[in-house]
């Protein structure tokens, strides 16, 4: 048992080599597009909307196709089933998501600067929690929209949850919901952290700081 803990703590204390650190810096850069590109995209298709209605969820705002009018259209259609209007102000996520992403840039850079596996693992798992929570809150929001329907609405619909991921038929609409560019970059961030860890898997644990170990390594090469 102690052996296992030792192995873990040894792993956490592994220094990160230069390649790993560079990869971590690149990973941190991968977060930046998440401020500029949408994280999620929902598409609504039906016969009378041959060009589809598009909704884009950014880290800090909502956007939609047709110069923003698609969201307006989605809301107009939703009012018939008594769904609350989807408005930016209701998304508390928009207040903390960008800050959280910014923090992740620092957390990952911290791993690159301190250069230990432990800090890298921190960044990795914190981000996984963050990702999971974000997905849950987004899913819960979809659930809420689909379950808090005005009982006096013109069209009575069984409560439903719009798809978080993948396809669902909702009334006359074929709805697709998928991650968008920003999320793909965040996914890249996670992968790069794994790569960084992988690259330093065989580093020797030294009592020295990582710079020394690097120097040593360079000498040996």
């Amino acid at each position, binding site marked *: 048992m102690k052996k296992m803990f030792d192995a873990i703590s040894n792993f956490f204390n592994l220094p990160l080599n230069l390649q790993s650190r560079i990869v971590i810096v690149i990973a941190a850069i991968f977060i930046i597009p998440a401020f500029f590109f949408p994280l999620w995209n929902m598409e609504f298709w039906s016969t009378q909307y041959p060009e589809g209605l598009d909704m884009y969820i950014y880290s800090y705002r909502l956007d939609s196709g*047709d*110069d923003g*009018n698609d969201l*307006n*259209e989605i809301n*107009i259609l939703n*009012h*018939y089933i008594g769904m609350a209007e989807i408005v930016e102000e209701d998304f508390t996520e928009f207040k903390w998501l960008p800050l959280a992403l910014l923090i992740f840039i620092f957390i990952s850079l911290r791993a690159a600067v301190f250069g230990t596996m432990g800090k890298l693992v921190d960044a990795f798992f914190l981000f996984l929690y963050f990702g999971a929570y974000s997905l849950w809150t987004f899913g819960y929001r979809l659930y809420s929209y689909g379950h808090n329907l005005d009982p006096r609405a*013109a*069209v009575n619909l069984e409560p439903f949850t719009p798809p978080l991921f993948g396809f669902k038929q909702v009334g006359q609409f074929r709805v697709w919901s998928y991650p968008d560019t920003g999320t793909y970059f965040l996914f890249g961030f996670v992968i790069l952290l794994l790569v960084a860890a992988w690259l330093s898997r065989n580093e020797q644990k030294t009592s020295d700081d990582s710079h020394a170990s690097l120097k040593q390594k360079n000498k040996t090469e």
Partner: protein
Amino acid sequence: MKIRRMSNSYLLWTMLVLGGTLFIGGCAKEKASRGRTGVEVGRSDIMDAALKTYVAPGDMDEYYLFYSGGHSGQIYVAGVPSMRHISTIPVFTPYPGTGYGFDDESKAMLGGFKWGDSHHPALSETNGDYDGRWLFINDNAQGRIARIDLKDFKTKQILKVPNISANHGSSFITPNTEYITMSTRMSVPIPLGSYADVDEYAEKYKGIVAGIKIDPEDGNMSLGWEVLVPPFNYDLGDAGKNVSDGWFFWTCYNSEREFIEGAKLEVTASQRDKDFILAVNWREAEKAVKAGKGKMIDGAPVLMPKDIPGAIYFMPLAKSPHGVDVAPPSGKYIVGSGKLSPTATVFNWEKALAAIKAKDYEDVVDDIPVLTYTSIMEAEVPVGLGPLHTQYDGKGFAYTSLFVESAIAKWRVSEPWDVVDKIPVAYNVGHLVTAEGKTVDPDGNYMVSLNKLSKGRHLSVGPSIPESAQLIDISGEKMKLLYDAFTEPEPHYAVMIKADKINPIEVYKKEDSHNPNAIWSDDEVRVERKGKKVEVWMIAVRSFFAPDVVRVNEGDEVVVHITNIEQTRDELHGFAINDYDLNIVIDPGETKSVTFKADKPGVWPFYCTNFCSALHQEMQGYLLVKPKK
């Protein structure tokens, strides 16, 4: 009463015209589909025609065709080559279908008239080619001209011009949309409203030709100048281009200058073997008015011919001419069609300029020099019976409609000036139009023959029969009939423009709305009363009006400003008040105001007339008019 001796040529023409009519009338049943050669007339190779005209569901046409709607007062929009009617643009006549003429703005624009006679559409041009910005059209009845914006296909301006009577020689536009023509076809004493008996026709009745100035930025039209001309009937016009740039041309008949009661104008106006084309230099006319030479008549600056020496001429043309059509691309040749002469006469404008320089005149009529015919005429092309109008294909050929012969002649606009092909049409063609055929760069693929008679070509609808428009393929050596389309009365002229030159908007964007009465949400909805005037700011959106109850007192003046707050394409809403005889239609993002007197007490539903949504039927409200005590 004056009785003239009929000239030999007149007799001959009467016989030919009668003969043509008799042929159509008497032999139609047996021979309508069989021509001289035994070839079927008015038929086409079905496979070829179908392939060339079939536009599959969801596909778009290559061209817009704008037909004038004649005495319907409107413009019809169709696609070529399918010939499908796409839309109607109301211009001079109220049109409940789009609410035109019911809201305050369009009602004011119509100026109290219930109809107009739209004849000749004209597309704005840049360097002699269509630029897809505006469409203009004349009212032959009321001396008006209208402008349609091709961003939203709506009539934006109707200009009524003083002194013009029966504005037929209109609307013909200059190569850079500087000016557009108007003219008097039925001379009257001026200003309009003056009285003189027809006995005094020659002295008291006046012809007027006018240049309407167009603002290059917004297309706004204003009167530039008028020229007072002899009391002939100024019929059709055209604007010169390139070699003939700077000149307007109008044909005229009744150069006999008389209207003899009971003697029939059709007889008295057909006596002279030649009438005229009037040529006016619009740049010189503009200068003369700027120099203050115009005499103000009814608010219009009217020039006398002697005010613009060197800028106004007559060109003799046989006989009772109708169309005058400047030939692209050079604008050197000007083709006049002698309605009662079997020829299209080609004038050479370079020769005309030389004759002007040499003062080579054969006569002077009311201070207007008449250029010597033989000096300026290039060719007399024997096109056939009853030539009316000419269009071009950009490949060196002209196409002239032959009303009496019910045919179109294709002829070479160069030596030996011969007719190379002829196609029968069903029946009695008036105008014809080729694709961009009067621009400096005609496309030479499609032609539409706008026929006056269509009997027997469609399911019978009783005695009131639609007009026919026949699509003809002119891409090859031989013209080929492709398609018969039918329209409501009554296309005269049409213009055909490549579809990609027009880029209409899809909705009125909220951010572009400048209407002070526009409101965009429930919160802004309000009703205000000032004395006996009640003003309502209303929104329409799927599927409700807010407010949905409007309370007024009998006798109140009610103004409803209604904004369709939709920004989604095709989500139109109507607003009709039952028994109040009003219906408006508001496009997405549009605001319209409608004013009426609440003179009927009671409860009057208002509702959305333009089907909008699954709950369209529920889109209604009530106008409550409290009775006077």
